[in-house]
C-alpha cells in the first residue's frame, strides 16, 4: 500500500499476520515438515500486538514460546521465523534450535528464550539499562504456569528491590477444558504483585485496545523509574498445552465469540474503519507475506552436519554484545514500525 495505514488497522494487520503465520507453522507441524511441537498462540494475538504497540523501538522484549506476535512486532522477518522453525541453515540459529528459541540483541532487542523462564535474564537487561541511565524498559512474557516456578519469585523480588524498568506480562489461559487443573490458588495472578510491593493489573487479553492502554500505563510507570509492573492478560486459547492436544468441538462457538481478531474486526466495522474491500486487501497482503516466507524457508538448505561443533566457545575477538552504543537509545527511524 502506498499510504501508511491507520494505527487501528495496523493493529488488525499485525494480529492477522501473527495468526496466519502461526497457521502456516501449524500446517508444517501437521504435515510433519517440522519435527517438534507448536505451543499454540492462537488467542494471544491481542496480547502480543497490544503490548508491543505501547513500546518504543529501543525497548527490550523477552517473548515466550507462544509469543510469535512479539517477534513480528519487533521487526523479525517472517522468512527468518519460518527458516528457524524448519531448522534451516539460514535461520537465526542455523538449525541449532527450533521454535522461537532465538533472539537478536543488536537490532530487534529480543532476548532468546531458553528452557528456563527468561524473567531473570529480562531483569538483567533492565538492570543494565538502569545502571547506564537509559530510558529503555524490558518486557518479559510468561504464561500463567510459569508464575509457579521459583525463578518467577526470585526475579520479581529482585526486580522490585531494584525498582527495575521491567514489565512482566502474564497470559492466563481462561479456557481450561479437559486440561482443567488448579495449579494456583489466586483468582488473579496479578494479585501476586502484592507480594513484591509492585502494581499488578488485570486486563482483558482478548481486547487489543484494552491491552494497549493497560500496557501504556505500565510502560509509563516503568520508564519513570517507578519499578516493575505485573500485567495479567486473560486470554482464551482454544488449545491445550501444544498443538498435539485436541480441543472439544463444542467450545468452538464460544471461541468465535471471544476470538480477539473477530472481536476487533467487529469493532473496526462498527467504527466504519474496515470494510470488505480493505479486508480482502489485507488478507491478500498477509497471504502473500506468509507464502513468500514459506517458499523461502522451504527452499533454504538445511545446515551442514560438519558445522555441528562450530561455535562451542565465543572467540576472543567476538563482536561486543548489546545494542550498538553509538545509536540513540532505541529510536532509529528504520526500527520504527510503519504503524506507529
Amino acid at each position, binding site marked *: 500500500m502506498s499510504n501508511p495505514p491507520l494505527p487501528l488497522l495496523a493493529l488488525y494487520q499485525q494480529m492477522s499476520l501473527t495468526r496466519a503465520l502461526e497457521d502456516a507453522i501449524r500446517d508444517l507441524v501437521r504435515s510433519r515438515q517440522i519435527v517438534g511441537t507448536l505451543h499454540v498462540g492462537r488467542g494471544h494475538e491481542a496480547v502480543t500486538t497490544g503490548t508491543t504497540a505501547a513500546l518504543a523501538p529501543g525497548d*527490550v522484549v523477552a517473548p515466550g514460546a507462544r509469543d510469535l506476535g512479539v517477534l513480528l512486532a519487533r521487526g523479525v522477518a517472517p522468512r527468518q521465523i519460518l527458516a528457524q522453525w524448519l531448522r534451516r541453515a539460514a535461520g*537465526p*540459529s*542455523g538449525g*541449532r*534450535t527450533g521454535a522461537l*528459541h*532465538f*533472539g*537478536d*540483541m543488536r537490532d530487534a532487542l529480543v*532476548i*532468546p528464550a*531458553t*528452557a*528456563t523462564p*527468561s*524473567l*531473570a*535474564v*529480562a*531483569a*538483567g*537487561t*533492565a*538492570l*543494565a*539499562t538502569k*545502571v*547506564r541511565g537509559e530510558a529503555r524498559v*524490558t518486557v518479559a512474557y510468561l504464561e500463567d504456569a510459569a508464575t509457579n516456578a*521459583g*525463578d518467577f519469585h*526470585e*526475579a520479581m*523480588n*529482585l526486580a522490585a*528491590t*531494584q525498582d527495575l524498568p521491567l514489565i512482566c506480562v502474564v497470559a492466563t489461559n481462561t479456557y481450561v477444558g479437559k486440561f482443567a487443573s488448579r495449579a494456583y490458588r489466586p483468582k488473579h495472578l496479578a494479585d501476586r504483585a502484592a507480594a513484591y510491593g509492585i502494581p499488578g493489573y488485570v486486563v482483558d487479553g482478548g481486547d487489543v485496545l484494552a491491552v494497549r492502554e493497560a500496557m501504556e500505563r505500565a510502560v509509563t510507570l516503568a520508564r519513570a523509574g517507578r519499578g516493575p509492573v505485573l500485567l495479567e492478560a486473560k486470554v482464551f486459547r482454544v488449545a491445550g498445552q501444544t498443538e498435539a492436544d485436541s480441543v472439544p468441538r463444542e467450545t468452538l462457538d464460544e471461541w468465535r465469540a471471544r476470538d480477539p481478531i473477530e472481536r476487533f474486526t467487529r469493532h473496526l466495522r462498527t467504527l466504519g474503519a474496515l470494510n470488505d474491500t480493505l479486508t480482502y486487501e489485507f488478507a491478500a497482503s498477509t497471504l502473500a507475506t506468509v507464502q513468500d516466507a514459506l517458499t523461502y524457508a522451504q527452499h533454504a538448505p538445511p545446515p551442514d552436519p560438519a558445522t555441528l561443533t*562450530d*561455535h*562451542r*566457545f*565465543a*572467540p*576472543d575477538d*567476538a563482536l*561486543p*554484545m*548489546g*545494542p550498538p*552504543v553509538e545509536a540513540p537509545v532505541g529510536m532509529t527511524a528504520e526500527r520504527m514500525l510503519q504503524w506507529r
Partner: protein
Amino acid sequence: MALNEETTYAGAIRRALREELLHDPRVCLLGEEVGFGAGGERPAHGLLGEFGPERIIELPASGGALIGVATGMALMGLRPVVELPYAALTGEGFSQVVAAAQLHWRTAGAMHAPLVIRAPYGTHADPWRAASPEAWFAGVAGLHIVVPSTPYDALGLLKAAIRENNPVLFLEGHYFYRRLREVLTADEVLTVLGQAEIRRDGDDVTVLTWGAVVYPAMEAAEMVAGEGISAEVIDLRTVLPYDAATVAASLARTGRALIVHDTPQTGGLGAELAARIAEAHGATMHAPITRVAAPDVPFPAAPELAASYAPNAARISDALRRLMRT
C-alpha cells in the same frame, strides 16, 4: 599497593576485581552485600566506596536470579561478575548457568554471555555451604571452570576470566582466603585460561590435581622423592576445558597417572580424565590409571571426620608407591 608486599588469596582476588573495574567500564560486580559485607573478609570488600553502586551492585541473594540477571546484563554489553556466598548456590542457578553457556552455540555464534560466577568452594563447617561443584557442571558445553590454588593464579586467572567471552565458573578456595600469602609482582598478571601449571617436575608418575589438594599432592611428591620416586605434579587450574596437551606431554614421559581430587570419586572429574587418558595413552601406560578422591559421601563437619575426607599426603603417597610397584 607497595612492591613486594605479601598478598593474601582474598587480596589477590580483590586486586584482580579492582584492576578489571579500572580497565573496562563494562565490568560490574553483582551479589549480596557485595563490596561491603562481612567485616572485610570478603574479597570485594571496599570496592563499593571506590566504584559506586552503578558498578558494585547489591542484589538479593537468589542464586538462580543472580546468574540470570548477569546473563541479561551481558546481553546488553556489560561484563558482570557475580559473587555467590558459597558454591553450593550454583545448584539454584544450574539451568541459568547451562543457558548462558549454551547461548553462543545455540545462536550459531551470534551471541555470547561474558560473565563470571565467583563462588567460594570446598570443605566448610556449615554443611549447607560445603560443596565443590566442578563435577556438577563438567558436561556443560560452553562453560569454563577455573579453580586457582595460589594468590598469583587467583589474580591472573580472575583477570583473564573477566576478559573471557564465555561464562566462567570461578571457584575460590574459601579456606585459602586469609591463609595463603604470596609476594606478587606489581606488574599486570594475566594467566591464560585452559593452561595447566607444572608445580613439580618428575619422570616416573604424573599427578593431576587442582584446587586445595594441590598442597597435599605436593607434600606427597616430596615424601616419595626420598624413596626414589620422581612425581610430576600438574595443577590443571582450568578443569573445563582442561589442558590436554600438557597432560599428554607429561604422560608420554611417565606412563603413569594419578588423579587427585577432593570431591566424591563417583562421577568426579577424575573419571572423565581417566577415560580420556585411557583412550589416548592406554596402550603405552605402565600402570593402571589411578584415582585418589573423597569417599562417596557429603562433606563432614567434625574435624575428625573431615581429616578422612579429602585426600591427604599419606593417602596420595601410598597411591604413588602402589603405582610404582605395578
